[in-house]
């Protein structure tokens, strides 16, 4: 294993650990408070489940629009058609938008988890580099 690979493998890669706010120089935590809500595993940032849920909600919306069309086309009176337009047609449109929003949030969350992990790796490497340089400068003074 190369030296770079050894240095990278010693860094934290666990999701929770990577998401923890970075420790500042004087031992304080960063200004952002750590959220203590425990999400189920399938809802965590790197899980694909929310994306599938979003797509399923959007598909349900399209199905509702098709049902609305089927019902509206089967009636000849406007006062009988309107409830289907509103309850199935517009609700279907709303469900599609909700599904899209879920997919959007899930994608952003996954990207954020990856970004945080990378940033944490860099912070850890720079911290170790600093410690290593301090150690070597102390050795020179002696």
């Amino acid at each position, binding site marked *: 294993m*190369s*030296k*770079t690979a*050894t*240095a*990278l493998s010693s860094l934290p890669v666990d999701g929770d650990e990577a998401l923890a706010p970075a420790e500042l120089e004087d031992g304080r935590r960063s200004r952002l408070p750590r959220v203590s809500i425990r999400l189920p595993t399938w809802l965590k940032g790197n899980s694909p489940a929310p994306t599938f849920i979003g797509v399923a909600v*959007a598909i349900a*919306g*399209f199905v509702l*629009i*098709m049902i*609305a*069309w089927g019902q*509206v*086309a089967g*009636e*000849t*009176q*406007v006062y009988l*058609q*309107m409830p*289907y*337009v509103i309850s199935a*047609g*517009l609700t*279907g*449109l709303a469900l*599609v*938008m909700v*599904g*899209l929003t879920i*997919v*959007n949030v899930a*994608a952003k969350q996954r*990207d954020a988890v*990856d*970004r945080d992990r*990378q940033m944490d*790796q*860099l912070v850890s*490497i*720079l911290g*170790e*580099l600093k410690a*290593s*340089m301090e*150690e*070597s400068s102390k*050795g020179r003074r002696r």
Partner: protein
Amino acid sequence: MTRLRAALRDPYTVSVTVLVVLAAAGLAGIAIGWRGAAASLVVSVQLPYVVSGVIGGLALLGFSLGLLIIQVRRRREAERRADFDRVVRAAADLLAAARGMA
């Protein structure tokens, strides 16, 4: 032809093409809905066109354009992550060199 084959092997190109086609289908749905509704003076005949063409077309258009925006953003994010990964690797190299010197 070879270029087209190479482009089709890239999942990003395929997904963007599919989403653009879906958006075009949404626009076509709205146009068909308008045409059907404009062809009749009876509201009860117009309504099915409004539901299937206009509402369905709007949903398809919004959904595909939304997914397109997400897809483009994720591609950019992946590129940025790859660049940042190079920075992390360079820092790890530096750390390994510093450990070697110590």
